[in-house]
Every structure is written in C-alpha cells, then in structure tokens.
C-alpha cells in the first residue's frame, strides 16, 4: 500500500482499532460461553464491520478481507446457519490476531501487505461453505437499505436494517410518556405474545435493565417473524401513548440481492459509502466524549501544578500586604479571592487527575484470552474470575503493571493450579479458579491474584534458598513462614527448575516486586499448601501525586515517598556505632546500617545548621532488611505534584522524579533502591565511587540549576517570588499548609485528610442564608446562583472513606466481603458519594432533577401551576449535629408531619418534612382540584399520594444521578413533631446512619412552603457490625 495517509488519521485509526480488538477478544470468548447471545453477535458483527469500513479508507486490503470474513461468520451465526464451535472461535481469534498484526505493522510504518491472510481467509471460507452446504443455500448478507432507491434520503439517514424474512414494526412513543422504556417494554411483551421478535432496537437487555433515565430515541423498532396479519400486529401495539406505528413488510426484491462472491472481493463503493455513513453516525453518537492523549493530560496537570504554586505565591503576597494595608475590608477581599482561586485550581487539579484514571478492567481483560489459551494448550482446566474491574487507577500504572501481573498470572496457572487429574485425585474441583480482583482502599487500590492451586511449599523454598546460597541452613531454620515466603522475591530465585512454555523464563519475582515498588506500591504474598496462593498488590491511585516527607540534607532539600518509609526516628548520637568501618545504629533490638544522604549526593553541609545530639534517621526497607537514611532534619509531610523530568535526568540513580515546592523551588524525589545501589558501590570501592559520584552529583547539580532556571522562566510569579535557598520560605509555606488547610488545594480524592485537619469550629462557616427569606428564584437559578450554600459540606465531617478491612483478620475479612455482596455495600458506597464534597455537582443535579419532578407532581396534584422551588440548601449532618434539625422541629409550634419513604433495597429513607399547616393547605388544594368536599376533620390520607409522588420523584432522580438502582418502598406518614424526633434520634443514637439534610423552599402563591428533605443512609460500618 502507499503510505500517503495523514499520520494523525492513522493514529486515530490505530487507537480505535486497539479498542475494537480489545472488545473483540472479550466478546468472541463470551460468545463461546454463551453462543446464543444474539446481541453479542450483533455487536461483534458491528465492530467487525466498522474495522472493515475504516480499513477500506486506508486501503488496507488484507485487513478489509479479514474484517469481511469475520463479519460473514457472525452473520451466519445470526442467521442460525452456523453453530458456534471451538474451531470457529479459534479461527476468529486468529483473524483478530492477524488484524492486530496488521495494525502493528501499520503503526511501525511497515508494509502491511507482508502479513499474509490468504490462508486464514480460506479457512473462514471453508466454514462458510460448509454452513451453506448444510443449509442448502447461500449465505444471506444483511443488506442495508441505503442504495439508490427513490427513498434514498429518508432511508440513508435512518439506515434501517432489512432482515430477510421479517416484518419491521416501527413505533414512536409519545413525548408525554414519562417512562418511555417501560412503554417500549410493554410493546415488546405484547408483540412477543403473538409474533417472534428476531431483533429489536433498543435491545431486550436494554429494556430489561435500563430505567427511563436512558435517553434513547423515542422510536423503537422490532423485526418480527409473523404468521399473523398486519392488523393483528397493529392491534397488539395499540396502547396509549404510542403516537405512530409503521409496519413494513419485507421487500422481496431487496432480500434477493445476495452476494456470495463478495467475500473474496474488496468492498464495493456502495459498501464504502455505507460504512462512511455508519461511522459518521457513530461519531455523532459518541460526540460527548473526546480522546485526549495521556501526554497532553500530563502537560495539563503540570500546568495546573504551576497554577497551584503560583497561587500559593498569592497567599504569601496577601500575607505580606496584610501588614501594610490597613484597609481591612480590602485585605479581606484579597484573601477571599485568593482562597477562591485556590479552591478552583485545586478542583481543576483533581479533575485532571481523575481524567487520567481508567478502569482496571482494561488490564484484567488481557488475561481472559491468556487463561483460555493456556487451558486449551495444557490439560489444566482453569476458570478466570474477575471482580472489581470498574475500579479506576492511573493509566500509567495500568501500563506499567502489564508485565508484572502477567508474570504473576503465569506463575499461578503454570506452577499453582494443578492438572485436572491431580485436582480430581485430591478431591478438589477439576476446574481450577484464578481470581483477579481489584478494589479501592483509600488512596490505594489493591489488585489481588488468587489461585486455588497447590500453594507454595515453604520447606522447598527454604531448601532452594539454602542451595542457592541466599541464606544459610541455620538462617533457614529460624525463618518465620512469612519470611520464608518472601524469599521468592529474592533475585534469581525460582521454585521450579524446568522452564515451561508459559512461565519460568524472563523476569523473576524479584523484578515483579521491583516494578511494583517503583510505582510506589507494595506486594504481599500469602500461600497455603494445597489451598492456593494469593498475591496482594497495593498500588497508589495515581502517580501524579505523591505523599512524601521533605527532609533537609545540608543545603539541599529532598523528598522521600511515604510509601517507602517504615518509620522516622530521632536517635541519640550515642547509639551510633562503627562496625568494620561501616556506620551502624542501634535501633531497639537490632543494629542497622546507616546511609548518609549527604555523602551519597555529595551535598555541602549547611553552615547554619546546628548539630544536635538527636540524629534524624529515616528507616526504610531494602531487600528485606532495614536501612537507616541519615538526614539533618525532617521538615514536613506534604502532597507533592510530581513533575515530569527530562530524559537524561531519569537515569540518575537515587532520584525518581522532582516536584516544586510552594516557594517555587525544585525538590528532588529520592528513590531508595537507587540510593542503595549507590551506597553498595560506595561501600565496596569507596575511592572509585567517589569519583563516579562526583560526576553523577555534578550532573545532578547541573540539572538542578537547569531545572531551577527553567521553572523561573516558566512562571513570572515565581520570578517575583523566589528567594532561592531561603529557609524561612519553606517553613512559612509548611506552616501555611498545616494551619490553614481551608486554603489547601483540594486533592481529596487521593488524600486522606491529614492529621492537621482543623476542627470544625475553627473553620469559618459561609454566611447562612436565612431560610425564611423570600425568594423569587426558580429552581434552575437557585442551584446555579447559590452553589456556595452547598459548600457547607466542606466544613462538615468528611470522613466518608471506603470501608477499610485491611487491618482485620483474614477470616473476618472474608466474612465481611460476603456480607458486602449480600448487603449491597457497594451501592451504599455509591450513594454515599452524594455526601462527599467533591461530588457537590452530583448533589446539585439530584436536587435539581428531584425538585423539578416533585414540583411537576405537586402542580398536578394541587392543580396549581404556580408552585416553584425556592432555595435549596444541603448539608451533611454528623450524628452530633442533628440538633440543628431537631431544634428546627421543636421551634415549629404548629407541629410537623413527615412523609417517610424507605429507600430500597437499602435500609435508608427519605423524609419530606412539612409543617402541619402546610400539609393541610396542600390537602385543601388537592381536594379543591377534584371538586371534592373539604374535609371536616383533618385527615392525612390524601397525603399518602403526595408521599408517593414526591418520594418517587426523588428516588428516581437518585437512580439517575448515582446510577444505583433505588426504589421507593411503601410510604409512611409520621404525624407530629415528637414522632419525627423520636425516629431521627433513634437512628442517630444507633450511630449507624449518615444524614443528609436538605432545606427546600417550595414557593406557593408568594408564600413559603418550607419542606425539609432528610436522607438517611446506613453507614458502611453497620454492615461490619452485623457481619462480625
């Protein structure tokens, strides 16, 4: 082929191709498991079709051929002419691999024609021919009605498929239908009672699972095989709220245009046109998302990092002028704006970091094929079980984890899981299970690889380690189980002598460990003989942010990742000893070597530094033993935004990256392994190393000054602000970080609140808007103009963290996990997101939607279209803060009524609390609307209906916003303040509920009808209690 295509175009094509291929991998294998899943087949067909179409544009003939071949097979599946067999699936996977190879060649600018596909296509053709012979007819190709017929315009845009032998029923649901998907579901049911539905849009699954929140077109289509008349079909679909029905019977002429020969030829122009039209539609469909290269996000993140730093400069300036400008109001304005800026840049930073996160499923899915192929290659039968695929983690970590994880999985399937025969003889299930799990835990995610194989024989491990000279016989005898297991992470250790095709070559477990640690993660191994092995890999959510300790070494400052630090110690100088010329320190019962960072990096001592009897030592782990890093001083712990380094910088041992401090100074991030590498050499050949080191450190110094220069040029603010090597700067900076954390950039997603977190009373609360204040805002405006009131969240407890089970004993943990599954903890977690300050938008959206629907309901019930929503204000109530609510209830002399609506399937509830007076007012209106007689005695009965409708409005919107399926339960009415109070107090006293308290103003004829919404969700810890 001639490579004249725009490189950008090729890149996009390859990106898409990769996505499609990943999809195909899964989908084809899913097909093997579930051959009758028409929808899957249709989707694969579509993907193959898209590949073919796009390849046509790039003139990739062999790719087009493969795409077409695959497409034809799927069509035969669809038509029921060909059965899904292992052979066909294998061939399809081969086709997929060939497509991948072509893509790779294209990416490397190689000749794509060099990849031979003829044999493969012949193979596919044989399948097709066999299928046709069997059925005594030629393969029917799905034909699109998009050719030059008179109705070309109409049909081209609609692009409606014609399925031979079917009648197409098109229906349009009235826009008045509030639940179009249920309407569609009803039609589907009614049609399927009299005819056979071959295909439908939206799919059956979509109708089954999706709520009416899904905004698909109001047109629905069914392709049916019918022995009944058109009239009967029409009758079946004649229900309310269907606007139009069209029934198209098959056009005989069209269906006969079957092309058997097409398979061997390239697509006709006409086909190209179709794919063009199709990919165009695809584009439009997915236009709400764009592809952004990760590198661009990196740049963006870097820039925002600069912004945050620039901002901290502002804070400093504001602080400086505070003393000069007497005009306090001006000063206050400067401060407020600065804070605002800080908050915004923090939000941006967080958002960008979030956008780098991708689901772990991308990583896991690779193993489906691997395990499948492995199973079929050997006489092992292995089932791969994935869970937590939706857990998100930094894209870069995913990429870096491919190799280590592959190695672990290989080990499991190769060494861990036994052959079916062995398993059977042991009384284990013949099918071995390999679990890949991911879950989030604070700022980390855990990836667990668990097999139910034979486990690791500790005795064997110890023997091998002794044989290999890693440990002595004596040491071996004294090892704990855990220590013995950890021997497998030693360089050069392998538990199996022979090398198999699957594992045993390439990297060892030591490299796996090293890779995980280079990502600031850790790996842990648990193994039980005959029960299996579990590897737990703990990885940070993102590489862009680092929790680090800043230390002072001579005139320099360095930062050390917290993940590598075991502890920090102030050790009296008398505990420092020298053994055989090596500096050591006594720490509790042991003696550990000391590494002076000043020596390693050849840093000049700080003349102003006052020597102290107490030495600062950071204890780190290196190769399973402890090492002390000697520094001058611990400065502070901080979240650092990691800056990307120039290429040559990355090669320096002991340095893994750099960051910028609030004062604009560059700080290097140290890497313990690199330091130890330097240190080892230092021990062995001090003189030579000194020389080498000088070069290294000279280069380092050179680079540092270059970086400093660079950063100065980058930021005008830093130029005006930088005071190089000025100690006070940093100290002020750090005190600012700790004392005024309201100004701190919000990186909450990734960071647990630091210990320095201010208590709530120290924090300034935004001025409250009096609830009684009359407002003419409509619902839309209020939420846009008053977002500040939602910021109340910032000041409330924010300790909603993912449930942390890591500290619990294994037995309890597994029981908890079971309980989780049973009790929908994940759903609760998702719902709890509403309480999180960073999800204020979610809350707003929910309120906006819920309010809108509630108002519609109220308007209809009361016949009063003047009802509007005024202000909405939300806050999280921690259990000790419910007095606000209780007091409010108490103050109301009229008595309150609560409509209580359980949130199912959780034990949560939504309360809609009204004053007695307002409740009776609503009832009056309701009765009036229906010209029903006014009540003689106050009867709450009609309010049941209000409860139903309001409750449904809010629960339904909750589903929309949080994507957690919740449903209203049977409503209850709590009459009287005392009862409401009792209920709230009861729940609060149990300590098991999170409360979200929303004050809503419903305005009615210029009057306020103030209603409080109270959401109660069970805390995650309740489930723990129950389970334990």
């Amino acid at each position: 082929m001639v490579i004249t295509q725009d490189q950008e175009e090729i890149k996009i094509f390859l990106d898409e191709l990769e996505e499609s291929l990943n999809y195909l991998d899964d989908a084809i294998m899913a097909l093997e498991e579930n051959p009758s899943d028409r929808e899957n087949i249709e989707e694969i067909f579509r993907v193959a079709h898209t590949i073919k179409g796009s390849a046509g544009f790039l003139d990739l003939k062999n790719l087009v051929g493969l795409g077409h071949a695959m497409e034809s097979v799927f069509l035969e599946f669809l038509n029921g002419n060909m059965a899904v067999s292992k052979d066909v699936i294998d061939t399809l996977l081969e086709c997929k691999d060939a497509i991948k190879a072509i893509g790779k060649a294209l990416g490397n600018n190689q000749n794509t024609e060099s990849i031979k596909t003829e044999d493969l296509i012949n193979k596919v053709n044989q399948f097709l021919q066999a299928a046709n012979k069997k059925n005594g007819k030629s393969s029917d190709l799905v034909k699109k009605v998009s050719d030059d017929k008179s109705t070309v315009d109409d049909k081209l845009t609609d692009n409606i498929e014609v399925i031979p032998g079917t009648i197409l029923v098109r229906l349009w649901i009235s826009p008045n239908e509030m639940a179009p998907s249920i309407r569609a579901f009803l039609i589907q049911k009614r049609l399927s009672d009299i005819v056979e539905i071959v295909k439908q849009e939206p799919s059956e699954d979509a109708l089954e699972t999706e709520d009416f929140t899904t905004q698909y077109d109001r047109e629905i289509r069914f392709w049916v095989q019918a022995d009944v008349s058109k009239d009967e079909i029409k009758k079946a679909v004649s229900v309310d709220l269907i606007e139009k029905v069209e029934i198209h019977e098959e056009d005989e002429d069209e269906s006969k245009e079957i092309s058997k020969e097409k398979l061997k030829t390239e697509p006709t122009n006409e086909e190209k046109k179709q794919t063009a039209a199709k990919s165009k539609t695809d584009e439009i469909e997915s236009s709400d998302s764009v592809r952004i290269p990760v590198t661009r996000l990196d740049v963006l993140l870097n820039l925002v990092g600069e912004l945050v730093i620039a901002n901290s400069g502002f804070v400093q300036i504001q602080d400086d002028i505070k003393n000069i400008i007497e005009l306090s109001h001006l000063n206050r304005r400067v401060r407020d704006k600065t804070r605002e800026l800080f908050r915004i840049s923090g939000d941006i930073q967080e958002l960008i970091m979030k956008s780098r996160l991708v689901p772990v499923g991308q990583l896991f899915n690779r193993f489906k094929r691997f395990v499948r192929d492995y199973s079929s290659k050997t006489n092992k039968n292995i089932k791969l079980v994935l869970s937590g695929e939706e857990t998100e983690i930094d894209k870069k970590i995913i990429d870096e984890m491919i190799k280590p994880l592959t190695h672990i999985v290989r080990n499991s399937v190769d060494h861990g899981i036994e052959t079916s025969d062995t398993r059977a003889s042991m009384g284990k299930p013949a099918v071995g299970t390999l679990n890949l799990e991911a879950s989030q835990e604070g700022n980390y995610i855990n990836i667990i690889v668990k097999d139910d194989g034979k486990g690791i024989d500790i005795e064997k491990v110890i023997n091998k380690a002794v044989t290999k000279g890693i440990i002595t016989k004596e040491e071996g005898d004294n090892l704990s189980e855990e220590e013995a297991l950890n021997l497998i992470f030693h360089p050069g250790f392998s538990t199996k002598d022979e090398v198999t095709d699957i594992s045993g070559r390439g990297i060892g477990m030591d490299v796996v460990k090293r890779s995980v640690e280079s990502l600031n993660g850790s790996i842990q191994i648990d193994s039980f003989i005959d029960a299996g092995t579990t590897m737990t890999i703990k990885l940070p959510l993102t590489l862009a942010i680092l929790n680090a300790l800043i230390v002072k070494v001579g005139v320099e400052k360095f930062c050390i990742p917290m993940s590598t630090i075991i502890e920090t110690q102030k050790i009296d100088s008398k505990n420092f000893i020298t053994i055989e010329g090596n500096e050591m320190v006594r720490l509790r019962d042991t003696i550990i070597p000391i590494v002076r960072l000043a020596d390693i990096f050849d840093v000049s001592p700080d003349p102003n530094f006052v020597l102290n009897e107490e030495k600062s030592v950071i204890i780190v782990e290196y190769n399973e033993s402890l090492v002390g890093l000697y520094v001058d001083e611990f400065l502070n712990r901080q979240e650092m935004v990691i800056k990307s380094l120039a290429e040559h910088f990355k090669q320096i041992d002991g340095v893994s990256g750099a960051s910028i401090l609030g004062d604009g100074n560059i700080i290097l991030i140290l890497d313990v392994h690199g330091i130890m590498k330097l240190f080892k050499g230092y021990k062995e050949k001090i003189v030579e190393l000194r020389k080498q080191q000088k070069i290294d450190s000279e280069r380092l110094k050179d680079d540092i000054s270059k970086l400093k220069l660079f950063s100065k040029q980058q930021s005008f603010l830093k130029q005006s602000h930088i005071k190089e090597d000025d100690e006070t700067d940093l100290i002020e900076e750090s005190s600012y970080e700790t004392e005024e954390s309201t100004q701190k950039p919000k990186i909450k997603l990734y960071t647990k609140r630091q210990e320095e977190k201010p208590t709530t009373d120290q924090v300034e609360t935004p001025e409250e808007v009096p609830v009684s204040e009359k407002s003419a805002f409509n619902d839309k405006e209020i939420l846009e103009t008053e977002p500040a009131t939602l910021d109340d969240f910032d000041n409330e407890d924010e300790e909603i963290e993912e449930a942390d089970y890591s500290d619990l004993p294994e037995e309890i943990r597994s029981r908890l996990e079971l309980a989780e599954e049973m009790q929908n903890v994940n759903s609760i977690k998702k719902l709890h997101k509403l309480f999180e300050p960073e999800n204020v938008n979610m809350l707003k959206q929910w309120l906006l939607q819920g309010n809108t629907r509630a108002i519609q309901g109220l308007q209809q019930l009361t016949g009063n279209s003047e009802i509007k929503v005024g202000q909405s204000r939300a806050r999280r109530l921690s259990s000790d803060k419910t007095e606000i609510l209780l007091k409010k209830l108490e103050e109301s002399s009229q008595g309150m009524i609560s409509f209580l609506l359980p949130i199912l399937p959780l034990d949560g509830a939504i309360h809609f609390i009204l004053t007695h007076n307002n409740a009776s007012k609503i009832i009056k209106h309701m009765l009036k609307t229906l010209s029903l007689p006014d009540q003689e005695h106050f009867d709450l009965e009609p309010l049941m209906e209000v409860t139903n409708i309001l409750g449904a409005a809010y629960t339904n919107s909750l589903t929309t916003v949080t994507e957690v399926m919740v449903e209203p339960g049977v409503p209850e009415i709590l009459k009287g303040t005392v009862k409401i109070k009792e209920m709230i107090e009861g729940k609060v006293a149990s300590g098991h509920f999170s409360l979200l308290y929303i004050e809503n103003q419903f305005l009615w004829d210029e009057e306020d009808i103030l209603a409080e919404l109270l959401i109660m969700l069970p805390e995650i810890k309740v489930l723990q209690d129950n389970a334990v």
Partner: protein
Amino acid sequence: MSEIAGTKVLIVDDSGYMRQVIRKYLEPQGFIIIGEAQDGWEAIQMFDELRPDVVTMDISMKKMGGIEATKKIKEIEPKAKVIMVSALGEARFIKEAIKSGASDFIIKPFAEERLVTSITNVVKKG
C-alpha cells in the same frame, strides 16, 4: 364513549384519596366502578367475586402488593385486563407486572385523559 360505557372497573389502591380520584375521573365517562380494594389480597377476592372488565392496580401496597395481586388475578382469569398505576421510580416493578400480564401502565400523577384512554384501549383492543 358509548363503546366503553358500562365497562366495569375495579379500583385497587391503598390510598383512599387515590381511589376517589380514579372514581372521579371514570364515572362521568360512563364507567361503572364495581368495587374498590385497599390491598392486593382484597383485590383478588373482589376480582373473583365481581369479574370486572378492567382492574386499575396500585403497585406498592401493604399486605399484598400489586404485582403479586396481578399474578394471582391472571391465574384466576388469564384474560383479565390489569392496568398498573404507579409512581415514577418503580420501573422494575412495572416491568415485572407487565411480564406477569399487565395490559398497560399509567404513571402517577396522571391526567384524566390518560386514564380514560388507557382503559379504552385496553378494553377495545385487548
């Protein structure tokens, strides 16, 4: 209107207000309300006894819910016409009811016209 005049309707709803509303909407159109049930259990009894042409069925009710009641009614009389009356947010239930043979559904709150059209369609066309 004449076609549907005389159609016998059983109203099932635990809310007396709601039952009143439905009655208020239907009676002027010539429908005959032959009974009102407050829960699913009552609904089954009354269906068996009164054999209405159409049942309007609330979904969430104490004692026995609308879905179970619909299932039971369809067991008693497979040709029974049941229209589910429910608030938004109960999609899963409505779908379940449809699977069990409900003929149509109406989302609360609804206008008079909606109820009448739905019943008319169901009665006329099955």
